[in-house]
């Protein structure tokens, strides 16, 4: 049966809201119209690391149009959270509104709610916080040195402790050191990536609307994790989830940049306190500076390679910059482990994936969480291996590509392998001539070709 005869597989699917996108009728969260809406603006820390000595909101409170001012003292339930606590990730290390210390420049300290966005902004600027600045650390490797400033008390050595009490998410398969001793070549390098802002065209935000006297609140949000946002909000506010109704919908771009779960809890609290609808929308500047970015990564790879191109050992140590708080980084670190050592069958593998804390903006997901930096490092490394042993980089990848039934370093057999065919198809498209024995290779049979 040819693809063109199939009804679903291989056929384009029309986007659900494409028709209203082109007329401008798609409803994003801030297109919801509610009367008497208030606006929330955040007073944010001006230091990357400082002790909070005093928070003075008196001037902000008497500023024109201000209806409500919220500090950590107004939080009814938890003062700290982690977005994945509901699925067992912890500890809850991040302040909802900063108290005792700020740990990154831009951290939320005081929420100001006023009749207009301008009034809220003017009043937020009048909040006075006395700080005692503390030494800060901005680099992964610096943070791991003895005597580095400690970012949070949860992590005295500035790195996450995985639930099994390990410093890293780990893969141990075969014996890499023994294989290195037997290898014809050792190829080693370090690969680093910088943080990247997802920069969705629509910034993070939500509108919380009280629904009458019994305390129910409806929240219109552009979060990418509606269920997580709901759970975290209920938890922080100490109310049952049955009191909250979260409505998502079309998101104006996310790319992982809308899973911070930051706007909803505080906006919902503001709606509860004021009894009026409240909107909190990040400015473009907040989106760029405050919402989490992709993390910075450092990937160290050491390969043991034979003259015929077989990679017999791969040792990887990865450091991920989580910024000041955990957010989803341990998940990203584990996913990174699952992705490495790439789509290749290597009999000896050793991986340590370490989550490091610094006084930078907390990082979070972005398209291929934990995977992109890994793939970048792996594929540049593959080219370097090819160059070192004087082999064509296409041929090197074909020799090492996993085949159906191979055992992966994660102790799982490869199913539905398609790497060889993918490389061959790419070679064809790119006009790359491969020797005949390579063209005959197959994912189903390592001996083919």
């Amino acid at each position, binding site marked *: 049966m040819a693809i063109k005869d199939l009804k679903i597989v291989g056929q*384009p699917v029309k986007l659900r*809201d494409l028709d209203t996108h082109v007329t401008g009728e798609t409803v994003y969260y801030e297109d919801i119209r509610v009367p008497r809406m208030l606006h929330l603006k955040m007073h944010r820390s001006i230091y990357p690391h400082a002790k909070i000595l005093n928070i003075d909101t008196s001037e902000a409170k008497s500023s024109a149009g201000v209806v409500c001012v919220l500090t950590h003292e107004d939080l009814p339930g938890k003062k700290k959270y982690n977005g994945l606590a509901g699925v067992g990730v912890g500890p809850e290390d991040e302040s909802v509104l900063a108290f005792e210390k700020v740990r990154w420049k831009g951290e939320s300290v005081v929420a100001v709610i006023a009749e207009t966005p301008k009034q809220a902004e003017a009043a937020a600027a009048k909040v006075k916080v006395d700080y005692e600045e503390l030494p800060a650390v901005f680099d992964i490797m610096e943070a791991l040195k003895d005597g580095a400033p400690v970012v949070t008390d949860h992590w005295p050595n500035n790195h996450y402790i995985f639930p099994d009490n390990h410093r890293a998410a780990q893969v141990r398969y075969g014996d890499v050191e023994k294989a290195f001793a037997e290898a014809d070549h050792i190829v080693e390098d370090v690969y680093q990536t910088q943080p990247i802002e997802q920069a969705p065209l629509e910034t993070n935000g939500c509108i919380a609307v009280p629904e009458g006297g019994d305390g129910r609140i409806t929240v219109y949000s552009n979060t990418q994790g509606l269920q997580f946002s709901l759970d975290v909000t209920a938890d922080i506010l100490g109310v049952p989830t049955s009191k909250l109704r979260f409505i998502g919908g079309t998101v104006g771009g996310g790319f992982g940049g809308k899973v911070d779960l930051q706007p909803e809890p505080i906006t919902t609290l503001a709606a509860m306190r004021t009894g009026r609808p409240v909107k909190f929308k990040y400015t473009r500047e907040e989106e760029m500076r405050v919402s989490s970015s992709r993390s910075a990564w450092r990937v160290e790879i050491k390969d043991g390679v034979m003259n015929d191109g077989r990679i017999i050992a791969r040792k990887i140590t990865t450091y991920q910059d989580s910024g000041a708080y955990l957010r989803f980084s341990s998940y990203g670190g584990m996913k990174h482990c699952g992705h490495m050592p790439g789509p290749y069958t290597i009999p000896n593998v050793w991986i340590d994936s370490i989550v490091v804390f610094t006084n930078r903006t907390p990082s979070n997901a972005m398209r291929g969480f934990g995977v992109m930096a890994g793939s970048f490092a792996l594929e540049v490394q593959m080219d370097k291996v090819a160059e070192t042993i004087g082999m064509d980089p296409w041929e090197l990848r074909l020799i090492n590509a996993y085949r159906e039934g191979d055992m992966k370093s994660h102790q799982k057999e490869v199913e539905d392998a398609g790497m060889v065919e993918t490389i061959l198809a790419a070679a064809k498209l790119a006009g790359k001539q491969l020797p005949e024995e390579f063209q005959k290779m197959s994912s189903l049979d390592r001996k083919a070709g």
Partner: protein
Amino acid sequence: MASRIVSLKVNGQNEEFIVGALTSLQDILRDTLNYTSVKEGCRQGGCGSCSVIIDGELRLSCLTPVQEVDGSEVTTLEGLNQSNSIAALQQQFIDKYAAQCGFCTPGMMVAIQALLDRNPNPSRDEITEGLAGNICRCTGYLPIIKAVEGVVAEMSGASGD
């Protein structure tokens, strides 16, 4: 600087408001008149999501104080929806998958209409140039450019790709 009364013709309707010196056209269109196709990607002139046509010219409504355009005619995507040329463009957008999240789409539509109004037969370079002020984070632009080329081909009677 004082508030004053400003009158505009928006999408064919006469409107009058009392506005402060720096009240933006964007705020009036979105919040007062509920033309929600006018988006707010940045409120600082960087993204094009708030594009409108003022007296035949493409403008960013977020950087336009209403007082400065007193007496003008303003067209948003809601206004363009009524004309025939936009229907062809909308179909091309659908056919070429030129929208994903859709947040840039209204601004793109308006910018493309303004481009075609002044140049009905733009080259690829002229299309790129005409959309240079509109950011799209999803599509990679090529489907949008192809949609415009499709409309141009249709209008000139050639069979578009």
